[in-house]
């Protein structure tokens, strides 16, 4: 057999060749140091890749995942905060409007008072000579 191709050696270590081909390559490797070395290099690369598999902090990871799938107390706090803000805004608006209504009411009251006084003055100085005494 000729030296197996790089592709064949690669498929050989992955056991992705028909049985007869695997046997052929095995027999060849036994007698060919060059191919044995090529094969060893490939196996060494695979071994290095396996060594690059890392151990992560899975405890922290799991805790983070679980926290994300649970209803968060933080968001409940936010909800309360939102509720308080809305309440405050409503009372401010209510307070301000009450203030405006009250000042308008007072203005109207003063205006009416002035009107009454002027009417009283007209009547008390009228041609009829009738004197009306205001109760004020």
């Amino acid at each position, binding site marked *: 057999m000729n030296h197996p191709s790089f592709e064949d050696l*690669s498929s050989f270590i*992955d056991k992705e060749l028909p049985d007869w081909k695997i046997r052929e390559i095995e027999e060849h490797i036994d007698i060919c140091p060059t191919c044995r*070395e090529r094969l060893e*290099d*490939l196996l060494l690369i695979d*071994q*290095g890749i396996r060594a690059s598999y*890392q151990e992560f902090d899975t405890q922290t990871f*799991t805790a983070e995942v679980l926290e994300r799938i*649970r209803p968060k107390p933080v968001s409940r706090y936010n909800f309360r905060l939102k509720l308080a803000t809305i309440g405050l805004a409503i009372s401010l608006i209510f307070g301000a409007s009450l203030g405006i209504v009250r000042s308008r009411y007072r203005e109207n009251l003063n205006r009416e008072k002035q009107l009454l006084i002027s009417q009283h003055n007209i009547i008390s100085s009228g041609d009829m000579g009738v004197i009306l005494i205001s109760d004020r």
Partner: protein
Amino acid sequence: MYKVKNYKEQDDITLIKLAQKGDEKAFEEIVNRYSNRVINLAARIMGSRDDGWDIAQEVFISVWRNIKSFDSTKNLYPWIRKITVNACYEELRKRGKGLESSLDDVEDGEPSIDVPDEKYSPEDTFDKIELNEVIEKALETLPEHYRVTLWLRVIENLTYEEIAETLNINIGTVKSRINMARKLMRDRLKYYLEVKDEPS
């Protein structure tokens, strides 16, 4: 629902069934069991540990949300692995990376990057850098589609057919990607592989 004392001792099927009923502890055990593999895989595809971590989190949240629709007669991890691969490619697509490489069909084509990185030139002596460390760095410089295919083969121990299924590509592409990945690795590590053969 019956109470389970030791979740660690339960098999996947039991854990799935419990998680499908909303048992958080069962889900916790699923995360414990597979998170390291998922983070490793995602980190390899994304080319970053932090990204791998973040995507793996999204993967398990998606597992929790979709566990009810999972067919408990099937194996759990291949499903999680598929979600992981899809999530990574989706993220790479969003970032404008990796789309062309995930859809490629490089039967015998040249690799997109074939110039060995400067870092791996034989400037440093072999005993300064461990071979495994150099191999990991060489792996990181592989184009992502070669890297993930080789990873699924070597770490996840999948057959070419299973890889084809996971990545939605044909077996011929799997084979050529693995060959090309190994060729690139060998070329980049040529110096170190030669040194290890020399008598010290």
